[in-house]
């Protein structure tokens, strides 16, 4: 407790977490149904064709970008609630954000490669 008053910047991530949640509702439903159907019973060619359709690719892109950001913001709330030691909290938050950025980068690049017809 440093008694410095409010940081005056807490509202934007609170709103972003919920706005991203709204954006994720249609795209994640579409993606999880498609993902599980493909993983359970279809071959690679079918999966590639499915992701090459602009609708699937668009929902996939939104799921990757908005999903990793939503996860980072949600984890920030959890970490700020339960991890009180700054020596752990700050490196932990940096690690979570880096992990999310890495997942998003790999996901977007892979999706572009598939969409371009690899």
């Amino acid at each position, binding site marked *: 407790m440093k008694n410095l008053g409010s940081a005056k910047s807490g509202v934007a991530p609170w709103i972003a977490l*919920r706005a991203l949640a709204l954006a994720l509702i249609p795209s994640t439903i579409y993606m999880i*149904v498609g993902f599980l159907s493909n993983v359970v019973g279809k071959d690679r060619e079918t999966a590639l064709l499915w992701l090459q359709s602009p609708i699937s690719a668009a929902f996939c892109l939104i799921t990757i970008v908005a999903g990793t950001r939503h996860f980072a913001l949600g984890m920030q709330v959890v970490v700020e609630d339960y991890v009180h030691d700054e020596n752990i909290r700050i490196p932990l938050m940096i690690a979570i954000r880096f992990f999310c950025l890495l997942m998003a980068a790999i996901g977007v690049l*892979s999706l572009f490669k598939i969409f371009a017809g690899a």
Partner: protein
Amino acid sequence: MHNSAARNKPRPMSPHLQIYRPQLTSVLSVLHRGCGMGLGAGAFAFIAWIAALAIGAETYSLFMYCAKSILGQLFLFGISFSFFYHLCCGIRHLVFDACFCLDIKTAYLTGYAVLAGSALMTAATWLKAYGVL
């Protein structure tokens, strides 16, 4: 008592989890956070699937070998339930944030609806994945 020993004694902290009787609303709230954290692993699996698709046929068959193992299927089942639960409960929380349905009776009603809804959606997704539905 203003001696230093009394001051250094840790103060009691709410909400006293040891003596706190769990009720539906608090359990659902904890579950929402837990499932949200678990979905990080789900996101990892999803990104791994897309990356494996992009890398090539050999990597994809390795991914499918893992996904189709019993452990992989259990993991995916858990992730799918976590997803639908986090989805339904997330919508419920968005409604709460907009200041609707905040009375206790409605909170319990929507709570049970979320549990039933996520179980149904998980079952429907797996039946569709296996071509039954």
